[in-house]
Structures are given as structure tokens and as C-alpha cells.
């Protein structure tokens, strides 16, 4: 699990090390460190870290450890890597395709093919959070059923 944590560190030697200790103790793997000197506020410099943790629990423990070390955490968030999900909807009216609203799935592209028979087909490419795949698929199945269309999602 990947997290971004932005800390307010005193701009003097050894401050970063205090923050890194609880991260290392909880198995955090640091991907990047960025000093945002342009956002400096008085003696403090925001430092943004991207860290991988094996679980939410280990992240929470590191988070508490940083706070206990007297370091202010400006912001923290989980970074979700998105993946593509391509779906065909056979028999879906392209006008209805744009009405589709699925929580956790962002539409990247829609393509419709001119019907040769009585049923056309619409392709929709979504960008989704992998952890939400099953829920997204379930919502898409419901949408397809309500639209009287056949859903063909990518594996």
C-alpha cells in the first residue's frame, strides 16, 4: 500500500532522521522524498514522502510514531494506483452510455459502432482503483441489466 505523507520539518540538520525512524521501524519502504522549499513557512519546510507499507496498520503505527516524535503531519493520503477496465455493452444506446456513473470508476473513453443489425455496441474504458474492481463490476452488471444490455468486461 502506497501513502503520501507531508511533514512540517524544522529546517536544520537531523530533523528528517527523526521522522524516518518510526517509518523504518514499521517496515515502511521510502519511494521518494521531496523538500518543498518554495512552500517554506518560517523555520519550517514541508517535506513530502511517498512510502510503501505492507498494511494500513503498519502505516497507522508509523503515523503515530511520527506524531509522538513531535513532528507535525501537514497531510497524509493513500495513493491508489489505477488500472484500466474495458467493457463492451451490447445493445446499449450510446446516448445512455454517457449517463453511466459508477463510484470508483472514471470514464476515460467511449466508442460506439454503427449497428449492422438491430443491436449496436458501445465500448467504455474506465480507470479504476484495483481494490474496487469487484464492486465496480457489480455496479456495471446492474447498469447493464437495467439498460437491457449485455456486459462484456475485460479479464
Amino acid at each position: 500500500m502506497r501513502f503520501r505523507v507531508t511533514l512540517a520539518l524544522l529546517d536544520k540538520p537531523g530533523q528528517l532522521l527523526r521522522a524516518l525512524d518510526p517509518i523504518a521501524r514499521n517496515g515502511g519502504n521510502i519511494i521518494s522524498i521531496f523538500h518543498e522549499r518554495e512552500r517554506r513557512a518560517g523555520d519550517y519546510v514541508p517535506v513530502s514522502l511517498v512510502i510503501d507499507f505492507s498494511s494500513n496498520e503498519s502505516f497507522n503505527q508509523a503515523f503515530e510514531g511520527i506524531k509522538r516524535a513531535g513532528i507535525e503531519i501537514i497531510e497524509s493520503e493513500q495513493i491508489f494506483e489505477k488500472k484500466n477496465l474495458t467493457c463492451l455493452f451490447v445493445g446499449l444506446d450510446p446516448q445512455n452510455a454517457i449517463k453511466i456513473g459508477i463510484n470508483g470508476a472514471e470514464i476515460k473513453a467511449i466508442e460506439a459502432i454503427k449497428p449492422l443489425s438491430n443491436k449496436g455496441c458501445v465500448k467504455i474504458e474506465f480507470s479504476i482503483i484495483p481494490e474496487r474492481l469487484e464492486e465496480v463490476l457489480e455496479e456495471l452488471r446492474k447498469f447493464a441489466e437495467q439498460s437491457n444490455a449485455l456486459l462484456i468486461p475485460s479479464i
Partner: protein
Amino acid sequence: MDVAILGFGFLGKNLVKYLTIRWDELKRIDPNFKVTAIANSKGYIYDSNGIDLFQLSETQDLTSYSKAPFCFEQAAILIEREFFDCVFELTPTNVKNGEPGLSHIRKSLSRGMNVITANKGPLVLAYNELVSLAKTNDCLLLFEATVAGAVPVFSLVRESLQGDKVIRIQGILNGTTNYILSRMHYEGVSFDIALREAQEKGLTERDFAYDIDGIDAACKVVILANAIMGRKAVLSDVKISGIRGINEEAISLAKKSGYAIKLIGEVEKDLRVSPRLVPLNHPLCVNGTLNSVQFICDIAGEITLVGHGSGKETVSALLNDLYTTLRAQAIKS
């Protein structure tokens, strides 16, 4: 080992043919190896000294076999009266009540006879009951041929993935629908024409709905779920969507985007059979009547097997189960 073959259709006849080809080898493993009974839907031939498979292979007709009379009696009576060390249950699949295969298997296992089957019906309806019956009576129930024909699905997991946990299984489990979808993809023919071609080639079941509506693949999903994932699944647990609705527009859009549409059976949290977009370079993306099965394991990761899901190649699975039974018998004695 005395063997009975119940069912003398396409598979039964090909089994007899390959038994003659492997005859010397089988006799080396077990000098007493012989097939003492072969039954079809009308009756059976029985010879306690062993049926001459070489002669039978030529005529392929039980009634014209000259060395033993043809008895117009049900196979169920035969397995009740005579003892066999191994029974091949190869009667046609019936997923409504599993008969006559279910009774044949129940009776054989109850009497301590090892069973090898290619018949999905009994396993779909009564997997856990039959496995428990085999265990109670200290005999084997092997069914490699029931899923993906010649592809060694169960043997692989049983013999080669003993330390792994299978997390998910997905695959193309029905060759007929794969043939239809491949024809639509590569030749641009309509669903109706591809279906008619499949029927003319004898690839469909008697009731083609069994293939195209995903029932056959769903039966295999149930067997995989029970046998490999330890579930207690029944056919109604599988969410099924067949390939009837797939038209040329869908095939064309999929193709343009680097995908092929395939009927995929899945065993994970849910059991499902549905059309899916499979990337053209994905290991599961095989064409024609081929089947493919992918296991996602906790240690080994992804393992994909590809092979013939039906036809005479299925005899390979039956023979593998026979060799397993012969070796198990040898250890026992």
C-alpha cells in the same frame, strides 16, 4: 485388475482403441489387467477371462462380438452382480438427475470398486457425497476427463501443486463456444452461421443450448470449485451468462481494441460463467476448440494449461486416471 467400461459411445470406443495400443505396457504394470465387461445403453458383454479388445476394436459393435454373448440387461444389474477393480463410467452427461451415471458410480463405490469417469452430471449433483463414499469404501474416484478433456487439471493440482493454495481459477472450459467465437473473430461470420458450422462438425451437444448458454462450462466450474477449492457448490450457485447476445459489432469493437471475446468460467469468491474481453496476447486467449485453464496460486503465481477439451484426446485423461488406479492398487496389494 478387472475393468468394466460402462458407455460405449465415442469415448468408450476410443478408450478401447487406446487400451489396445497401450496393451503391452498395461500388462507389464499388472499382468492380470483385463477388461471383463463393456456396456452400452441396450446391454453388455461380459467375459471373466477378459474381452478381446483387438477384435472389438475392429467391429466397434458389442452385438457382433463373437467371443461372448450380448446380454440385454442394464449395466446397473451387471455392477451389482459382478465385481470389478475399476469401473469406467462413460455414459452421457445428464445434469438434471445425473442418471444413469450417478447410480452406476454410487453402486460401484459402495461395493469398493474404483471409479474413473468422464461424466460431469453425477459430480455436479453429488460431488461431496461421492467423494465421501469413495473414502468410506477405500477406493478411488477419478474424474480428470470431466473438465477440459485432455488437459491435466486435477492431476496437476493433486501431484504438482501440493504445497500451493489455489486462490482463483479461470478459463475457457467449453470448446464449442470457443470455436463459435473464434470463427466470428477471425472469419467475420455471424453467430448463427458459426453455430450452424459447429453443429455440422458435431461439436455441439444434442441440445446446443447446453453449450452456448454456458451450462456446460458452469458444470465444470462447479466441479473445479468442489474438487480444487473445497467448496460445496451446486449448479445454481454459478452466475451464468452465455454467448447468444454476442453480435458482429461486439466482435469488431473487441478486435479493434486488441481483445477477443471468450466465454470464461471463473472460480473465486463467486462462481461465474460469462463472456469476457481477453487480451489477444493473454495466455488464456486460445482459439478453435481448444480449452485453457489458469490457476492463480499463492506461491507459484499464475499457471496456464492449454489443450483439447473434447474429442479422442480426452482418452489421455482416462488413461492417466487408469495408470493412477493401477499404481494405487499395486501399493495396496
